């Protein structure tokens, strides 16, 4: 297991390095500069500022400098937020984003699993059809469209919940819902397919032949085995959720990382863009790693193949 983890860690560093490089050069290809909106500044002042931040040097030199700082763990300072370190900006904003993401994935997974399991057990009954319709709708409606609908009907029309902002748990409900619908849809769809397959497998018949009740068979044998492929999609799902939060945070005026990220792109705030991208990437790789480990916990065959030593 230790060797497996170490191997994973090395891959993670390589991946991060590639992402950092790609983002850096992509950013340099973007039109505009951090100073494009500062009409009051004279060209001399602008040149001074660029020199101050090292933006006057050739791109390869900037790249080497950037990597050097990165190795020291220095993500640089922001252009827009009074020279505050990027790391500090991220840690200030991570709270709401993490909370939203966490709530959405937990809620989405639970509801999705229940829908999928019910659909499979009641295969070809109305419960199954209902769950399928929910899954198809959830998968095809983008979270920001749903977010708008929720704001209009539940917050504006019915006035049950606040439209936007971040002032307590009540404010998290609508964005969480908007975010979790995609999760519900994919989990339900996967779980249903898997459960159906597992329920028709021979070992379920063996379990029933032992005299185990229908409920016992489902809880002890079917659900655990259906979870294996579902766990695999949790990785990519986290990506969806992360990109989803960018838009949802903007839509619901949540002071999260995504909202800050979108603004930094609009303002060409290079260090914040870079820092946030790397942060997201690291999170993502971590999520995939956790999924891999979980996979081994649920399926003994993988435990043996992947991490015997």
């Amino acid at each position, binding site marked *: 297991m230790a060797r497996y983890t170490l191997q994973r860690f090395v891959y993670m560093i390589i991946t991060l390095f590639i992402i950092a490089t790609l983002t850096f050069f992509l950013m340099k290809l973007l039109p505009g500069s951090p100073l494009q909106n500062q009409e009051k500044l004279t060209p001399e002042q602008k040149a001074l500022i660029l020199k101050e931040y090292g933006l006057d040097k050739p791109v390869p030199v900037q790249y080497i400098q950037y990597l050097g700082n990165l190795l020291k763990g220095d993500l640089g300072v922001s252009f827009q937020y009074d020279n505050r370190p990027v790391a500090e900006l991220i840690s200030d904003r991570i709270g709401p984003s993490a909370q939203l993401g966490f709530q959405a994935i937990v809620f989405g997974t639970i509801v999705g699993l229940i829908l999928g399991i019910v659909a499979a057990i009641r295969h070809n009954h109305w419960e199954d059809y209902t769950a399928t319709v929910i899954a198809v709708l959830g998968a095809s409606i983008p979270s920001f469209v749903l977010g708008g609908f929720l704001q209009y009907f539940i917050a504006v029309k019915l006035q049950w919940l606040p439209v936007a902002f971040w002032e307590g748990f009540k404010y998290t409900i609508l964005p969480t819902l908007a975010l979790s619908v995609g999760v519900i849809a994919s989990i339900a769809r996967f779980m249903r397919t898997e459960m159906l397959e597992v329920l028709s497998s021979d070992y379920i018949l063996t*379990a029933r032949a032992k005299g185990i009740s229908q409920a016992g068979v489902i809880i002890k044998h079917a659900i655990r085995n259906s979870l294996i492929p579902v766990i695999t999609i949790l990785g990519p799902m986290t990506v969806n959720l992360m990109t989803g939060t960018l838009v949802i945070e903007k839509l619901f005026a949540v002071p999260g990382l995504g909202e800050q990220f979108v603004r930094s792109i609009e303002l060409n705030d290079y260090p914040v863009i870079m820092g946030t991208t790397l942060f997201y990437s690291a999170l993502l790789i971590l999520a995939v790693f956790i999924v891999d480990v979980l996979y081994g916990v649920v399926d003994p065959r993988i435990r043996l193949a992947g991490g015997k030593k």
Partner: protein
Amino acid sequence: MVEKILQVNDLHISFDIHAGEVQAVRGVTFDLYKGETLAIVGESGSGKSVTSKALMRLLPTPPSRIKQGEILFEGKDLTKLSEKDMQSIRGAKISMIFQDPMTSLNPTMTIGKQIMEAILKHQKLSKDEARKRAIELLQLVGIKNAELRMKQYPHQFSGGMRQRVVIAIALACNPKILIADEPTTALDVTIQAQILELMKDIQKKLGMSIIFITHDLGVVANMADRVAVMYAGKIVEIGTVDEIFYNPKHPYTWGLLASMPSLDHKDTELYSIPGSPPDLLNPPKGDAFAPRNPYALKIDYELEPPMFQVSDTHYAATWLLHEMAPKVEPPAVVRERMKRFADIVARKGGKPRG
């Protein structure tokens, strides 16, 4: 007379599908005696597996349903029991083992847990006692290092070893009846022989009755006391293993015997019964085997033959046994085989078994 442990009377099972009603089992009647092995043989789709699953009420309903008939066991009609009552019989009094040991064990549960699950369901034992019992069972089915093996998962076992585990699970509560649905079909020949030996051995020790579903007549000769031959959802011939092998009466049984491969004969080509089994969505009028039967009489296309009695234990459903039917001898290849079976018996100086 030996005690009857199970009686199946006129069992009809149908599957309701979009196209209509598939009559998979169309009136099956047989008795199972205490301590005996009854083999049910037939082609794919003859209804042998459906019959065996119906005994355990393991068929999904819908689409399947028991249309009529009864399954009498310990004074109860199993077709009328509630699901809950059935659960207390399954695995405790009637157990079943399946064809493919590679898929019939849960891949994410240890062997020990899978055996203990059956024990704990039916017996009031503590976990420790159940574990001890599970280890005993593993030793009974010939698995070494039982204690260590308990903690392992199915993928750490070979096919033959897995089938032993499946048998251990089935034996967990000392069942009265063991239904084996082609238990050796998925195994290679040497392992097959070991598993069959094991089953005979255990039957001797525990004295249960076995219903052995197979399409392999070689296995039948080796295992069974009595044989029921099924065709198109009916039993067409039933008798002791000697009667079926030395004195078969039904043309379908002749066909099965003729198409049995064997090492000690000189035929260059293996016989096969022409045609294919009928569509049970619309079963034909008369004898379902008639279109494939070179000895079919006119009446076979009109009226289904009843069971004619050949001896106390031997019955066959063919009009050829009617007193007005022309006398027909089995085909040469079958006669030759009947003779050879008899020779083998003579050589061994006893029954051609084990």
